[in-house]
């Protein structure tokens, strides 16, 4: 006879069976039985300062533990607790992150009565979860947890929400752990159709100018070795999406770098001149394609994807290979023939040389002067930590793009950033999650001054948990990316982008976090060394030019090759540089 226990205990019994060791969350009235039962289970609970922080932390925890196939768990109470999770759920959904969200709900008999702290959370989250469950009876809990984790981590991963009525937490039932998951409608494709693969391979054989587009799917399915083998065997250069960075080390001769709106000129030129694109686990987002009608006009297209709904969604493709990316690439490697594309790679190298000449950091080196630039800080951070086991988390905006351009990621799972949703304030809570997942690694949060203030309360979490977290704020005193767009597309009419910021060093001090402000180039290395010596959280504020821009840039209405290049003259950068030494 199976043991009888409360639903709250059944939840923890089930979570332990799914390998859960850490839960990020925030308690409240409708989830109290679960929090009470938690005390009897060997689980680390991280109390964030806002439910959104718990959601992002669980997301980053999962993204940096992909190899271990970990699922992040975030927990909150009903009503406002649950609605505060929503931005984090949407972030995880857009970036295919496996997170199980558990929310308290009013007792089943009060559902639909507008009870205190009642919100229709399954209704609210339906379009931003892979699946969700409303649990009204204790006996359902083991099956629901089993299904939720299975759905979250398989196929195209994504967030799953379990809304747990309070009576289901309190009532007793027999604990029966299901031996098998029975989801008749859930069948993610695994192996590619052999005929489609033969057609793809024929396209590759004919190609003179192929380019691989590596997306996050490479990291999700752990197909880095297979990607490298395919690229090397058929001599194909590899461009990466923002979330695909790390799929192939940037030191690899066939690695190009990031494509798209702020991708490097030579990468986008390669895509626009290609005669074959092989898209691996990426979804032709508008930030990657530029103007769709003019996207890679000469290229045949092969799309390898686990989610059939991505095929022909934005870009029509010639061959679709549906399946788990690593499995499909292994199938392909059995039949691919060695090729050389030397002329094509020589052409790309010529474009690359022109890119280098315009590079911000190269220019600073040539001129030896001017104000300290955001890009330069990231470059120095990379040079300093490249050989350490480092994870970088970011917010969204200019600093994020500088990280993507100047931190030369050499390994997968080292960049944690909000790509699809573009969630400002993601950086610090993501850093909390990454630092808990990887106490042995250096975790650096790179944030802007705007985004940092959205979730800065999680500094307290970092202190409470004793996390070895290095926080870098690239402070340009503006909402920089919005200001950049206003400069370029709204005739420099700056609307609601100037920030009156707090003293970030004092703010850190109030949390007991050691901090330094850096205004000069010559102070950078010492500050980075100071941060690396600290155990526990540390904060560095870098004053960078308010009117610096992220280039190159493709506007949303332009084809990918029509880029705004890095300018030779940057009068705004020079003119506004002297604010850096000013008092906060």
């Amino acid at each position: 006879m199976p043991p009888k226990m409360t639903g709250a205990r059944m939840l923890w019994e089930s979570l332990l069976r799914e390998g859960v060791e850490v839960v990020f969350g925030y308690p409240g009235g409708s989830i109290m039985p679960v929090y009470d039962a938690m005390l009897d289970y060997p689980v680390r609970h991280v109390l964030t300062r806002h439910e959104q922080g718990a959601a992002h932390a669980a997301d980053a925890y999962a993204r940096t533990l992909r190899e271990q196939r970990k699922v992040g768990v975030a927990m909150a109470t009903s009503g406002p607790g649950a609605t505060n999770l929503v931005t984090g759920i949407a972030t995880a959904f857009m970036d295919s992150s496996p997170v199980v969200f558990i929310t308290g709900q009013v007792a089943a008999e009060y559902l639909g009565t507008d009870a205190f702290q009642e919100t229709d959370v399954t209704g609210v989250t339906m379009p931003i979860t892979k699946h969700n469950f409303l649990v009204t009876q204790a006996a359902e809990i083991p099956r629901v947890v089993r299904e939720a984790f299975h759905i979250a981590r398989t196929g195209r991963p994504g967030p799953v929400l379990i809304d747990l009525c309070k009576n289901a937490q309190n009532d007793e039932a027999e604990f029966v752990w299901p031996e098998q998951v029975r989801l008749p409608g859930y069948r993610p494709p695994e192996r590619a159709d052999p005929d489609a693969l033969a057609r793809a391979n024929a396209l590759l054989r004919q190609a003179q100018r192929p380019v691989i587009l590596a997306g996050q799917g490479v990291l999700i399915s752990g197909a880095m070795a297979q990607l490298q083998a395919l690229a090397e065997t058929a001599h194909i250069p590899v461009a990466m999406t923002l979330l695909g960075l790390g799929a192939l080390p940037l030191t690899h001769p066939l690695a190009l770098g990031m494509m798209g709106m702020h991708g490097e000129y030579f990468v986008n030129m390669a895509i626009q001149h290609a005669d074959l694109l092989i898209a691996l686990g990426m979804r032709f987002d508008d930030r990657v394609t530029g103007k769709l009608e003019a996207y890679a006009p000469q290229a045949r297209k092969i799309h390898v994807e686990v989610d059939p709904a991505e095929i022909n969604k934005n870009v029509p493709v010639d061959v679709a290979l549906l399946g788990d990316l690593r499995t499909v690439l292994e199938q392909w490697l059995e039949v691919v023939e060695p090729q050389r594309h030397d002329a094509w790679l020589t052409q790309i190298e010529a474009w690359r040389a022109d890119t280098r000449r315009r590079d911000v950091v190269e220019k600073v080196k040539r001129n030896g002067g001017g104000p300290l630039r955001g890009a330069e800080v990231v470059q120095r951070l990379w040079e300093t930590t490249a050989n350490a086991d480092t994870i970088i988390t970011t917010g969204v905006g200019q600093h994020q793009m500088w990280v993507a351009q100047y931190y030369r990621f050499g390994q997968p799972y080292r960049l944690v950033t909000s790509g699809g949703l573009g969630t400002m304030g993601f950086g610090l809570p993501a850093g909390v999650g990454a630092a808990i997942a990887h106490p042995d690694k250096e975790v650096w949060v790179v944030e802007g001054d705007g985004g940092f203030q959205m979730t800065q309360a999680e500094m307290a979490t970092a202190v409470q948990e004793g996390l070895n977290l290095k926080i870098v704020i690239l402070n340009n005193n503006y909402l920089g990316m919005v200001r950049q767009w206003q400069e370029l597309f709204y005739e420099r009419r700056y609307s609601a982008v100037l920030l009156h910021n707090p003293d970030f060093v004092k703010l850190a001090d109030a949390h007991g976090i050691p901090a330094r402000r850096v205004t000069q180039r010559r102070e950078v290395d010492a500050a980075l060394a100071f941060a690396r010596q600290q155990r526990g959280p540390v904060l560095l504020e870098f004053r960078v030019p308010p009117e610096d821009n992220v280039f190159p840039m493709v506007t949303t209405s332009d084809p990918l090759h029509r880029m705004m290049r890095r300018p030779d003259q940057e009068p705004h950068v020079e003119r506004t540089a002297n604010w850096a030494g000013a008092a906060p």
Partner: protein
Amino acid sequence: MTAVPHTFVVLVENKPGVLNRVASLFRRRNYNIHSLNVGTTQDPRISRMTLVVYTDPAKAPLIEANLYRLVNVIDVQDVTDRPTVRRELALVKVRAPRGLRTEIINLATVFRANIVDATPETLTIEVTGTPEKIDSLIEMLGAAEVLEVVRTGVLAMTRGTVQGKRHLPQGEPAAPAMAAA
């Protein structure tokens, strides 16, 4: 892009909220539902939907793929171009003054429709058939004053052993596996 009506037969798990998930998907992806019918099947665990959607034919596979993103969706068939029995039921209430009653009843007979309610002022006609047949009856009733119309939306079933089109390779068909379980 020209939107033409596409008919999908969709098998879903018979669970609370599934209809909402399907409707929510169509709203979110901006697909234009013409009619949606849900009902039970021979298996109490499975419900069957017949969906008519206006779409560019090239986008039909995407609708199928998006339906499969819903965990509770078991099987999707596009029966648009397949030999199919299509039926809809309608109730049509018309004002029926003394001088028009015989004409209305004769018209119903021509359409093999039944008079299912009669009052001194009105007649209610029950008609079953293809949507086109029902359209045509309502048009013919134009001389009388149509007071109310309710239609079920079309039900579709392929003829004989014909299967609907599956745009995507879907591995093992799930419905038989479910029946065996």
